[in-house]
């Protein structure tokens, strides 16, 4: 399912990273029309081209079929059976597994948690990442060191980060409770990860720590592309710092922000490792996600049919959200390109 998304990203990422250098519609003349592959080619050339494409794409396509298409088809097949992991597929149950997943309160809770994480990730990391990126975008001492420090959590493996945070969250003896104790406060008795109300927020904190670095680096890269002249012109016109950020930086950063939000959304839907290491979806399913649900159903309960149905549902949810996002939000970036093309042709 994610391959679909990454494949799409491959397409959308390029306009996103390049658009900062592409000015807003009116100043499109920056790039000449010569490089555009708009001209018609002869028939022979097109056949040769086709052969070439086939030749180069075939190995990748074969691998993709074997390791992506076949397992997906297999998962769909399993989802129609009651299957314990061995023996033949005997008990065909039709859509019953899907019904059971969709009626399952554990799955509904898990789905809700995914949605909360999607929203929370974007709502917290976007402003925070943007603020940090703006601060780091000026010339200052230790700029490189600070950037590295912020990016380090993203580089650490999710499992290792999870184990570190698990130890920090241990009640009484963990770092967090120790620090709270020093300043005269105390965490919940069960610990932040063991209390129903605090487990999910604690997870969001760890995820923010882990992934803020990616947002900052992407935003910084986007900022590098904003032409210096725009700022100079604005300053000459007497615009305040705030106005400059609002009117120039953020709009110019738009495609980067939208691409980052897309990555964040897809990642949040598939969230598994960090949850598994920190809480295994507990306490009492307070932090479960669709991915932990299907692993629990498949690996722990041997309900492979149910797990497969859940995985297909997760796939469809991710796909629908991705397509919707592309259609209604990423689409803007494409529109800009289209407008530019028209201008160039004239």
């Amino acid at each position, binding site marked *: 399912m994610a391959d679909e998304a990454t494949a799409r990203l491959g397409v959308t990422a390029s306009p996103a990273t390049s658009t900062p250098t592409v000015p807003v519609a009116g100043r499109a003349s920056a790039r000449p029309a010569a490089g555009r592959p708009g001209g018609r080619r002869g028939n022979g050339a097109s056949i040769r081209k086709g052969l070439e494409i086939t030749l180069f794409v075939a190995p990748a396509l074969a691998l993709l079929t074997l390791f992506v298409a076949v397992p997906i088809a297999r*998962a769909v097949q399993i989802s129609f059976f009651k299957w314990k992991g061995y023996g033949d597929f005997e008990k065909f149950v039709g859509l019953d597994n899907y019904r059971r997943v969709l009626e399952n309160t554990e799955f509904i809770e898990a789905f809700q948690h995914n949605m909360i994480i999607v929203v929370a990730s974007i709502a917290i990391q976007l402003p925070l990442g943007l603020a940090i990126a703006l601060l780091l975008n000026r010339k200052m001492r230790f700029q490189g060191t600070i950037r590295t420090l912020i990016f380090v959590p993203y580089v650490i493996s999710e499992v290792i980060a999870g184990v570190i945070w698990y130890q920090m969250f241990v009640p009484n003896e963990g770092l967090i409770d120790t620090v709270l104790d020093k300043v005269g406060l105390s965490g919940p008795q069960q610990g932040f990860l063991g209390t129903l109300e605090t487990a999910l927020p604690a997870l969001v904190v760890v995820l923010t720590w882990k992934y803020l670095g990616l947002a900052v680096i992407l935003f910084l890269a986007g900022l590098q592309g904003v032409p210096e002249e725009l700022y100079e012109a604005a300053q000459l016109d007497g615009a305040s710092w705030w106005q400059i950020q609002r009117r120039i930086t953020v709009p110019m950063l738009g495609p980067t922000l939208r691409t980052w939000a897309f990555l964040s959304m897809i990642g949040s839907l598939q969230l598994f490792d960090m949850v598994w290491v920190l809480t295994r979806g507990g306490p009492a399913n307070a932090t479960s996600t669709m991915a932990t649900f299907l692993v629990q159903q498949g690996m722990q309960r041997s309900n492979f049919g149910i797990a497969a149905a859940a995985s297909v549902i997760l796939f469809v949810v991710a796909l629908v959200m991705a397509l919707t996002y592309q259609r209604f939000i990423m689409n803007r970036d494409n529109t800009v390109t289209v407008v530019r093309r028209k201008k160039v042709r004239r």
Partner: protein
Amino acid sequence: MARMRRAGAGIALATTIALLAACSSGGDTPSGDGTTAGGGNKGEAVTLQWWHNSNTGDGKVYYDKVADDFEAANPGVTIEVNAMQHEDMVDKLAAAMQSGDMPDIYMERGGGELADHVAAGLTKDLSEGAADTIAKLGGTVSGFQVDGKTYALPFSIGVVGFWYNKALFAEAGIDNPPTTWDEMYDAIDKLKAKGIAPISVGAGDGWPAAHYWYYFALRQCKQDVLVDAVGSLDFSDPCFVRAGESLQELLDAQPFNDGFLSTVAQKGATSASGLLATGKVAIELQGHWEPGVMQGITDEIGEAGIGENLAWFAFPAVTGGEGDPAAQLGGGDAWAVSEKAPDAAVDFAAYLLSDEIQKGFAELDMGLPTNSSASKYVSDAALASLLEVRDASPFVQLYFDTAFGPAIGDAMNAKIVDLFAGKASPQDIVDATQAAADLEK
């Protein structure tokens, strides 16, 4: 936001299944020559595949010798021993079962899992072939029977009970280990008064918390009710709700370590076992593997550990309960023979349970022998006291999650943890278990 992943967990799962199927049909373990479909009369040359998990040290050497001795006593029989690390063995076994190309002698853990294997026609009925051995093992085989037929011979069975720290008990002025829940609550109060956390439980892993409910059910329910439930999957007897009520009463006394809902069972110093091993809590409800687990943890963190202060007492009686207070919760490992294996495999499985082999098994601390003649060779004092209780018990109930199989068992465990978290009632546990059971019918 989570890492962008190339494949979602669903695909990973599906891929695993597909790969397992692919590997297993590759067949790196041919199940011997001339050993097809129940054939192989005595005297005929046969090769037996034996898979076990004693892959290190003395245990491995011992099992190699056992195989050699059997070959010497049975001309024509060759035993190919495959000693694997436990998780590897479980994975390979799952693949072997999927392809139907199974080892001749392998390990079963009983209960619903075994019943599934039997239903799939993978496991041989040993009732006649190993009748003498089964008679000698007595009640311990009950967890390895399906419809009155015995499909595996248990070689190591332990029971769950309270491991405790004698020094901390002395410090709190508790003279004798509790035998009733009134005494237990008294002990909990005394420990808390001394500022000692009474009990640790790794509810983050589910099953350690679930063991409490299992045990309360064992004390509240008649043996017949429990035995029938495994077959009928009927949990309507009110004793199951009372089990949850007993557990609720215990939870209300707040005896558990801080953060028990996120505590894991056996990994590291902050796990439930780690807390007992390092003297941070006084008691933990665990199985016979606990001394070994704690040894591993203290070795890892380089501390001396609980050592001589470790002792064991059985789950106390519950006032008004219908269950026998001497009945115990436990489980273990058994030797099973695959359906297609030759008769010699059955003889070998029975040989593994003989007085002589079980004696060596006990002496090397490889497990808790099921052949009572070998019991006296277990040296560890705490384990010996556990064995005494096990051997005196009229009935060893297999862990419910194993007995009912993972589909029902894990749903049951999850709801029991919900009760620990204050998110479910005693009735909810019964309802969730019944709902999962109904889907299996």
